[in-house]
């Protein structure tokens, strides 16, 4: 389990992360979302002990990273797909990591098999494609059979097959009882992978909730209505508690379903030429959420 407590990180005057707290629980995939520069990588680097927080702390199973007795058995991480010496073969890269934590040599071939690189194990990492490099990074993360896994944008630059493979891998790892934290820019991607969401914007926490809760909360349905009598229909719908905006023979209705609008129009004798439910996509909801992150922070401070 990862616990981030009131963590802030300041780089040369600029705040990258501000007073961030969240928990990554075992058995679920936690999606870590935020636009470019939100502070996802910084947060992960602080968790890994690669960066010292300005204040607050991050612990893994109660330990600061550098105090973990055998780090690779506790945490596996993929921070950068290119993080291997281009002149070193894949097997030696993994063998060196295994030796540093006294892991069994047999683990090297096991993880090579797990990520499907056994046939190119003797090849230099510099000859690998982006996808193969990603797999090598994942093999390194899995080497110690760790209880906690961190992936920073693991699907970046991958083809659809690779994306599907990583998605399934993360789901399997969580199903085995591991804590999995995976960062992404894409809400649509996380909707398919994550059970829980942690959303940040400009270094601040925006949302920390189960995926279903986020979906239910953010996906409001709008109904577009085309009618020759917009003003009269708007008045009728307002009586039903709907919120409507009028313009150019069109009504945008929020708050009542399409079927209710149709019935109300029939009862009032108002003609309807078009009735279209429009569901805001998760991606739009996410963009809306993060676009307002500064205002959101101000509003919470006022409460």
């Amino acid at each position, binding site marked *: *389990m990862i616990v981030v407590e009131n963590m802030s990180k300041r780089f040369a005057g600029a705040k990258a992360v501000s007073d961030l707290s969240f928990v990554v629980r*075992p*058995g679920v995939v936690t999606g870590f979302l935020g636009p470019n520069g939100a502070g996802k990588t910084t947060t992960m*680097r602080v968790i*890994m*002990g*690669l*960066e*010292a927080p300005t204040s607050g702390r991050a612990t*893994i*199973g109660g*330990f600061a*990273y*550098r105090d*973990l*007795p*055998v*780090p*690779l*058995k*506790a*945490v596996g*991480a993929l*921070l*950068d797909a*290119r*993080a*291997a*010496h*281009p*002149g*070193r*073969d894949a097997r*030696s*890269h993994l*063998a*060196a*990591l295994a*030796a*540093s*934590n*006294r892991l069994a040599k047999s683990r090297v071939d096991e993880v090579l098999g797990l990520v499907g690189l056994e046939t190119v194990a003797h090849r*230099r990492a510099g000859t690998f494609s982006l996808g193969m490099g990603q797999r090598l990074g994942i093999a*390194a993360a899995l080497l110690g*059979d760790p*209880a*906690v896994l961190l992936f920073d944008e693991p699907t970046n630059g991958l083809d659809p097959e690779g994306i599907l493979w990583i998605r399934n891998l993360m789901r399997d790892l969580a199903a*085995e*009882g*591991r804590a999995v934290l995976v960062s992404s820019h894409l809400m649509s991607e996380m909707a398919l992978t994550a059970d829980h969401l942690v959303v940040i914007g400009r270094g601040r926490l925006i949302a920390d909730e189960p995926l279903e809760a986020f979906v239910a909360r953010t996906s409001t349905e709008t109904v577009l209505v085309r009618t020759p009598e917009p003003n009269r229909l708007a008045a009728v719908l307002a009586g039903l508690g709907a919120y409507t905006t009028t313009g150019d023979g069109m009504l945008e209705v929020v708050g009542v379903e399409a079927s209710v609008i149709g019935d109300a129009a029939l009862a009032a004798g108002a003609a309807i030429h078009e009735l279209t439910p429009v569901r805001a996509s998760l991606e739009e909801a996410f963009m809306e959420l993060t676009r307002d992150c500064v205002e959101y922070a101000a509003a919470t401070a006022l409460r």
Partner: protein
Amino acid sequence: MTGLDAAVLVRPTRWAGFSAACHSEWIKFRSLHSNRAALTGAAVLTVAIGALLAMATSSHFHPGLVAGQAAWDPTSVSLMGIGVVELALAVLGVVMISAEYPTGLIWVTLSAVPLRGRLLAAKTAVFALVGLVVGELLSFAAFAVGQVVISGSAPTASLGQPGVLRAVAGTGLFLAVIGMLGVAVGALVRSTTGGVAVMVALMFVLPGLGQVLPESWRDPMLEFWPTQAGGQMLNVAPQAHALGPWAGLGLLVGFTALVGAAAAARFVYAES
């Protein structure tokens, strides 16, 4: 698996952790084709250049000149190619650390060995051992080949003569220390081009410039210039305006320790 189980909580001893880090660094060092190629090339060049220079120098030897005889040091003549392997060890020492930065490999390494002092110590220890073995092998090889080449035209040296074994074995030590200095500079500079430039300046360029200074400046500068002082190991006979072999090597070791301490301070305590 639901958390950090008991097996994860067993902390290895400090020594076990350090030796595991050394083992890891050794696997990394030997698995790079470029390291093997550089050392093989340097070995061939060191012995070959040593033999050629020994041949050229000994052909000018005049047995009739007493002064020439006193200055004739067949041991240091046979070790004249050592500069090649000295440069190779300096560069590979820098690369031990600098090569991990461009790809971000250093962050993977540090996630496996989060104690930075331990990592730096392991890299230094592994490369010191590489430098010692390579240095001793090549200085003895260059000495042996050099004496064979010289034997046709001038008196040769043997390991039994006073100071000769010290010079040949001490040259290996000198090379190991140069390698450690390379690692320290690599950790301080973190860039291959920068680190190599610093090492070349320290070992060759600045002492070379020192030669053109007025004598009153040149002699003390070259006497106490760390790499020049360490290089006194190569001479059997004491030199004018130079430290003795052990004092000279001691000065180089002290300088390396200073650079190493600065490197450790940056590596361990500086941000990221």
